[in-house]
């Protein structure tokens, strides 16, 4: 396979142009991902009840809620780890099923879970391409992978000095940025980040938040799950609140106050879905 083609496909600054056109031409654009009336039960526990959720291109949507509100369950449904009991999932207007994580990957959904799933004994490049190694003449195309890794890290303006560093030598923040960079391999359209800033220092948080803005600028849809209201309000465009597995409010991140969001999370306010724009 010609190297150039491989590189383009792999790094694939994913249809930023297309996303841009969608944005400029119309306000009634189709969401990248739309989930309608999703239900999921674990025996007696109702994890998700009639949840609606949408992600558009070039948008960071934060998913917030108390412990056990169903944030991670919803993320697992998006990434194919769990199957919903009922409900509809659409990608760019077409109904799809996401029966497995690899199916999610093929649909362009990349997920970073809390445990990151990286290999300590491999270097940065090997981790980025883990399971998706480039090959040339039956051998691994190390040079190409290294070049691609450098480019991806540069695109994210990451501070990792060398792509040959072993993962065990990196700080928690640097490992998180490797995990985020890893999602960019294989042209994703949607990136799901589960608690990316938990247990990071301020400088590391700053880097991860800058990466998230970078993903948005590349035209991707980003789902950000976090407990930290500062981080959520800093980088997201829209904030969706879940409470006891149900939608409990949707907020415009640039204008919603900290108090209003907290009230929705704790249940001090019971908001029907999309209550905010009704005033407009």
């Amino acid at each position, binding site marked *: 396979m010609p190297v150039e083609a491989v590189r383009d496909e792999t790094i694939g600054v994913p249809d930023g142009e297309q996303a841009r056109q969608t*944005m400029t031409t119309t306000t009634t654009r189709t969401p990248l991902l739309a989930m309608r009336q999703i239900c999921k039960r674990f025996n007696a526990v109702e994890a998700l009840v009639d949840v609606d959720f949408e992600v558009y291109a070039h948008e960071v949507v934060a998913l917030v809620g108390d412990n056990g509100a169903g944030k991670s369950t919803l993320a697992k449904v998006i990434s194919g780890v769990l199957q919903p009991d009922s409900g509809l999932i659409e990608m760019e207007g077409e109904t799809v099923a996401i029966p497995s994580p690899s199916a999610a990957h093929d649909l362009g959904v990349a997920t970073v879970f809390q445990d990151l799933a990286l290999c300590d004994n491999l270097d940065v490049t090997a981790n980025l391409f883990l399971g998706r190694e480039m090959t040339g003449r039956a051998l691994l195309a190390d040079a190409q992978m290294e070049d691609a890794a450098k480019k991806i890290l540069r695109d994210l303006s990451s501070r990792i000095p060398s792509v040959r560093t072993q993962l065990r030598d990196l700080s928690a923040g640097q490992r998180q940025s490797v995990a985020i960079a890893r999602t960019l391999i294989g042209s994703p359209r949607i990136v799901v980040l589960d608690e990316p800033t938990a247990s990071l220092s*301020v400088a590391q948080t700053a880097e991860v*938040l800058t990466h998230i803005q970078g993903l948005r*600028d590349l035209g991707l849809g980003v789902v950000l799950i976090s407990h930290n209201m500062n981080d*959520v309000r*800093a980088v997201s465009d829209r904030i969706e609140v879940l409470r006891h597995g149900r939608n409990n409010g949707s907020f415009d991140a*640039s204008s919603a106050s900290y108090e209003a969001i907290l009230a929705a999370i704790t249940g001090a306010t019971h908001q029907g879905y999309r209550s905010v724009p009704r005033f407009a």
Partner: protein
Amino acid sequence: MSGSQTSLREANRASIIDAVKRHGGLTQVELAGATGLSAATVSTIIKELLGAGVVDTRTTIRSGRRAQLVTLARRTGLAVGIHVGHRSMRVALAGFAHEIVADQVLPLPSEHRADTSLDRAALLIVELLDRVGSSIDEVVGIGIGLPAPVDAATGAVSVRGILRGWDDVPVAQVMSKRLARPVFVDNDANLGALAESTAGASREYRDSVYVRASVGTGAGIVVNGQVFRGFAGTAGEIGHVQVDPQGDICRCGSRGCLDTVVGARAIVEPLRGTHGSLTLRDVVQRALDGDPGCARVIADAGATIGTVVAGLATAVNPQCVVVGGDLAETGEILIGPMRDAIHRRVLLNQIAPLEVVPAELGQSAEVQGALSMVLQATEFDVRLDEPDDDPHDEPPVEATHAG
């Protein structure tokens, strides 16, 4: 007689160190130009300072010739610069040569609060120091730029309501209590003006105005090489000049301020119907990519800001207007209409036509200004041990004063 000779030399040393501090690094020829001293005097003094370890020299190239670049020796410490914006905070560390050794941007929520943000700034400083292998002991001072007028005496925002969540917070005191270092606070446009007038687009000029067009609009005024702040620090707050008597109420409490017409909300709102929900950064990026709607909004903002800057320019008569901030990243899309508006209204004298140019330091102007503020405020002991000097050359009074 010989006593006055010594004090003259000391004064010369001080002015050379001052010039190096101001610019970060200068060649000996430039130093002669900046201080008005002869090349021979500069050369002698630099030799002394080099011997005393106050400055470092290294070979550089200026206009195709080899030259000696003079910088302050790094052992003298680090300065911390912080620029707090409406939606992000930038923290940078620099040595006395003004070279930035560490730099980090942290996105912030809208209407962030002073307690949380200052907390995080302090932690960020300590982490960045750690990154460059230094510690808080090496820090000579911390400069903070805020997007609101600042009272120089208390380091607090001097007009209520402009920066919500920061009212009545003695920023300098909070920060110095936490890190036990001197803290200097100023308005971000003033710091941008300071940086651009010492190391940026207006360094050739004595009188200049720096306009910062971002989430809010502000200006920094440099008169005779010094930033002019006004009594309560509100000089140059062009964001609160009335441009529309029937306009919206501004957060400052009056009606139709420039900020309500060209601020982030006013830029984003007219595009909502056609372009969907955008951020200010998106609009700037789209304008650069050639989107006519986004470019139009920014061009109109440029023209409106220009009319207000023209008024300021009539009052101050600067040689140069430097335009910075997020919107200035669109280059001539913003600055072209602004220049036209300024030139249409300002009194154009024949001596020196008013220039309107983009900022050279870009997004880092404010943080560089914060660093310069710290470095300029830091005292240096310019007296050197001179064994050949007669001890009773100097009157004791002067010695204690200088020490």
